[in-house]
């Protein structure tokens, strides 16, 4: 069963994402690959580079800069892993550096329409 781990990091007041070192992330990434559960995963570029597109009923497109982080956390990246059940997915989420220092990981099963 595939699960998406959405990594919400907690930025410091200066806007920097606090907490883990790049080495922590590289170690976690290696663990996920070695365990043979990696489906895909990316880390996202800085929040200030994000852009929002909306299309209204008339088909007009609006482009704005954003998204503005309204919550305390910002989406920093994701993993898709393939593991037997939610408990195993939660174990991996708990090992992810993004779950610490005020950040959190949202774990969502990926729908299976077969």
């Amino acid at each position, binding site marked *: 069963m595939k699960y998406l781990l959405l990594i919400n990091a907690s930025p410091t007041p200066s806007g920097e994402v606090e907490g883990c070192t790049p080495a922590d992330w590289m170690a976690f990434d290696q663990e996920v690959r070695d365990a043979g559960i990696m489906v895909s995963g990316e880390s996202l570029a800085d929040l200030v580079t994000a852009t929002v597109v909306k299309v209204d009923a008339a088909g007009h497109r609006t482009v704005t800069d954003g998204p503005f982080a309204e919550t305390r956390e910002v989406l920093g990246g994701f993993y898709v892993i393939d593991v037997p059940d*939610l408990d195993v997915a939660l174990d991996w989420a708990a090992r992810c550096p993004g779950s610490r220092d005020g950040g959190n990981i949202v774990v969502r*099963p990926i729908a299976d329409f077969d």
Partner: protein
Amino acid sequence: MVEQVFREERGRLLAALSRRFGDLDLAEEVTSEAIEIALEKWPIDGVPPKPGAWLMTTARRKAVDRLRRDKTYAARLAVLQVEADLRDPAPASEFPDDRLQLFFTCAHPALPAEDRIALTLRCLAGLTTPEVARAFLVPTATMAKRIVRAKKKIREARIPFRVPSADELPERLPGVLQVTYSIFTEGYAASSGADLQRVDLADEAIRLARILHRLMPTDREVAGLLALMLLIHARRDARTGPDGELVLLDDQDRARWDRTMIEEGRALVLTAITGPPGPYGVQAAIASLHDEAVDVATTDWPQIVALYDVLLALVPSPVVALNRAAALALRDGPEAGLRLIDELADEPLLQTYHPYHLARADLLERLNRRAEAAAAYQRALDSAGTDPERRHVERRLQRLSP
């Protein structure tokens, strides 16, 4: 008698089938079908020698029939089954007791707290959805929706049917115990409604704790929880008067306490507090001291205060602090107790907590500070949840006015 058999077997069947098929809905449907068939056949053919195994075989056959009819569903479950077997080879016994797995699934932290209690009542206590709705005082349709939602999450997020490993257990077991105790406390002191106690719910919680204790006989907190509930429930008949009114500990007719329950609880307390105590074990030890005393005056208050000190270190909550203050008032006098209670005055949790205002009013009355006592009784009246609690406070208010 037959009711009893079905009630007991229903939970075991449901647990075994949920684990086997990874699907609570399917397990519930085929369990009900098997019981229906038994209700038709047994009166004619006689009860089979192994009723549990008979029901299990019938239910399993029904499940296989259903899966044959629905190929996609079957394929999905087959994958689940292979994965589950790989991780956890099937137990040797023909019909093992899988209820512990189901307890942990129903109390999984990924489910909202109220859904955990509802599912446990539905799947392990065997209450029907309307009965669970009544326990929560919500409409049946609301409860049905909530149970469907919880089952959907178990199925689609694939919350596993398993007992957590030894290293996860300290993190997960308190959740299971909490669910059981929440059912009990709602039975012991209903949060609202016409009746003070709901003995059926308290009985149900004790039944669940007995199952847990049978499945985990060496766990001290499980023993502690069962002991605590037995020792409190032993006083149920003395806690209300002839008109359903509240009778406080001082005024209870101790001859009406259930001695058998007290003895059983006391034996369990010994198990619970042999070794470093957990919160339930300590609370059970406190309840045991109350039950052993002949009256309030000769109760071992120094020992109770000492136990509350231990409890407060384990569970630093304002409610525990309030209870400690009340015990201390009985050891050192109302003035000392009131001083501690007033220190808790700013706790947000206690602002609308009925027992807080009642305890404060009581101590003020004992100190003959009548005007302040009346004001505190008024606040107790405002925060009372049930009619007997309200009537109790009204009576005490009347007694105060000259």
